[in-house]
């Protein structure tokens, strides 16, 4: 089959169906921030609404609560979702990162146990990877998981867990082989956050809301059947997650297209000729990002894989988002500093983009070493 950039009748019908449902169901008033307890539960209720209508995880198999559509249709849904101004996805760490990883690495029991509850937002997940001494250098993880009969005993500290303040579960990386170094001897373990020995300490982010948390673990007993993938092979599981995160799932083009459209509206409201080029540059980048994503998912659907290229994607979307948001603030002129303006929250959030999911500096190293074949750095 040759290159074809038109949408099929089925794809158009799917888009129309999504658009109609979203227009009828997206809350007219914005929900409170999901980094507050009240907002978190409002978003959980919205996730249930999505789920019950079959829109929570469109690309997942039907048995887990999805509708089994392909990745192109997933991109279409995402475009419609953000075009409709629908709420942010409070369950995104589970839905978009852990979910696909569970499908690849999980046992049949694990899939049946975790995926439908995740899709329904019965369980909202956070990620437990970073530690005080393991940020960009994730292989520096020290939190331990010690096998004790049919349980692991967890101890240590996780940090910067997004949505961790109110989440129900955490998927964490733990060192199971204390003798192994770096990325060897790590294991991915699924941890309920209400277990004895778990202490969650919310951390206020730049916007003042508790968007992430520290999670302290003191002799927390977790059954062995909550290990994801093989023991000591957690790094492979994590990298599969991270590759998908940076490359496809975390930031679909729909949200940036919607932001670019809002930026153009903002320019029309308060036009400034000196910022015209910057506004258009943001719109063009969102278009380019959309095309790049359709090319990536087409390649995946044709049997291709995603590897270090995902780092290319991550650098692009994070810098584009910052450009879009900061250009909007510049359009606001001196009103930009006024708290609660529609762009300030977006700007503050965008500032985290070049940091989380692996800093852009680390991504540049990855590109240089794995795509261009340059030697590893000495230090």
């Amino acid at each position, binding site marked *: *089959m*040759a*290159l*074809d*950039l*038109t*949408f*099929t009748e089925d*794809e158009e019908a799917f888009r129309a169906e999504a658009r109609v449902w979203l227009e009828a169901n997206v809350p007219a008033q914005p929900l409170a921030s999901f980094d507050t307890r009240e907002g978190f539960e409002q978003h959980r209720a919205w996730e249930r609404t999505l789920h019950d209508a079959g829109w929570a995880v469109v690309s997942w198999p039907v048995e887990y609560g999805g509708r089994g559509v392909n990745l*192109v249709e997933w991109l279409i849904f995402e475009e419609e979702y953000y075009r409709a101004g629908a709420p942010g996805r409070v369950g995104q760490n589970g839905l978009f990162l852990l979910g696909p990883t569970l499908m690849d690495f999980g046992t049949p029991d694990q899939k049946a146990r975790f995926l439908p509850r995740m899709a329904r937002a019965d369980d909202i997940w956070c990620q437990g990877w970073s530690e005080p001494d393991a940020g960009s250098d994730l292989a520096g993880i020290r939190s331990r998981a010690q096998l004790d009969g049919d349980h692991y005993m967890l101890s240590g500290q996780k940090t910067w867990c997004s949505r961790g303040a109110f989440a129900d579960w955490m998927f964490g990386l733990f060192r199971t082989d204390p003798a192994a170094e770096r990325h060897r001897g790590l294991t991915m373990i699924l941890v309920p956050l209400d277990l004895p020995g778990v202490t969650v300490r919310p951390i206020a982010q730049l916007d003042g809301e508790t968007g992430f948390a520290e999670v302290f673990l003191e002799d927390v007993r977790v059954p062995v059947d909550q290990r994801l993938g093989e023991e000591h092979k957690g790094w492979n599981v994590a990298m599969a997650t991270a590759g998908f995160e940076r490359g496809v799932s975390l930031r679909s083009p729909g949200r940036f297209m919607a932001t670019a459209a809002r930026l*153009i509206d903002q*320019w*029309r409201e308060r*036009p400034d*000729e000196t910022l*015209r*080029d910057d*506004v*258009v*540059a943001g*719109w*063009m*980048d969102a*278009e*380019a*990002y959309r*095309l*790049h994503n*359709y*090319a990536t998912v*087409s*390649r995946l*659907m*044709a049997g*291709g894989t995603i590897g270090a*290229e995902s780092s*290319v994607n991550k*650098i*692009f979307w994070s810098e584009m988002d910052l450009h879009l948001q900061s250009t909007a603030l510049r359009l606001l002129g001196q009103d930009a500093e006024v708290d609660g303006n529609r762009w300030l929250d977006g700007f503050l959030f965008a500032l985290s983009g070049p940091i989380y999911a692996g800093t852009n*500096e680390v*991504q*540049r*190293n990855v*590109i*240089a*070493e794995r*795509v*261009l*074949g*340059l*030697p*590893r*750095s*000495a230090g």
Partner: protein
Amino acid sequence: MRFVFDEDASAFRAAVRDLLDKECGPADVRAAWDSDAGFSAARWKQLAEMGVVGLTIAEADGGLGLDETGLVLLLEEAGRVALPEPLIETTAVGAPLLQALAPDRLAGVASGDTVVTVGLSHCPAVSGAAGADLLVLERDGALHAVAAPDVDLTPVESVDHGRRLARVDFAPAAATVIAAGDEARAAVALAFDRYAWASSAVLCGLADRMLELAAEYAKQRHQFGVPIGSFQAVKHKLADALVKLDFARPVVHRAAFSIARDDPDRAVHVSMAKAYASEAADLAARAALQVHGAIGYTWEHDLHLFMKKAWALGAAWGDAAWHRRRVADAVLPRLPR
């Protein structure tokens, strides 16, 4: 939606890469620079035998009958070797124009015997004029087809010595007109977009090759006791150029599709392609030169063959700023002055 090339396209690309790796090394590009026509007629014949030259010509007229989506990967390959032959002028622009307006003038084009170029008023110095057998020229709102013996050329030197620009004089006559009025206007707009798009594809190939050269050099060149490619300052410079290129390619591929399907947004799509590809090649050239250091600044080193084609094609047919403005005019209203 299927944004991926099929196996035939990939196989054709691989075959062309094989040929050009053998037949169009840097020494061959230098030879073309020193030749009269600015390119090698023998290599053009080899490309014709593979079907590349006549790719956009109807099968009935001796071509492959493919469209821009079949050509775009081969233009990238042309860029990778800084191909001096007029693939843009003849195959991407001239042949489809003649196919639409004067198919009787296509004789000898697919076989490589008749080299075509197209001169538009937007770019008064016509590229490939010195080596062309048939020139299609815009004059006073009409398009004329004129054979080489009937034109006078005044050479204009390009930074890329293979381009052989020239101002062209000829005597317009009723017999030379192949289109006038609205038909000519539409054909000129389409030819301009094809020039800009095809240049974008070549620019992507040039950027790719320059990054490859820079990465190779960064692995071999040692300073302070280590390969310079182990320094993050070097890595990040090349990574940034790679990001820019990686996001230019799908934009260029989309423009190919939009031209082939006569999409109503063709002009915006082409302008995005030319803006991104020009900037990507420019950044790759800067990064590659900096990584090479002084050796890259010499005539002897091959890098400049690629940089100069990148600069020439980046400027031709609307530079990045021109095309960004064209997108802006479509997306945002102009303020009243």
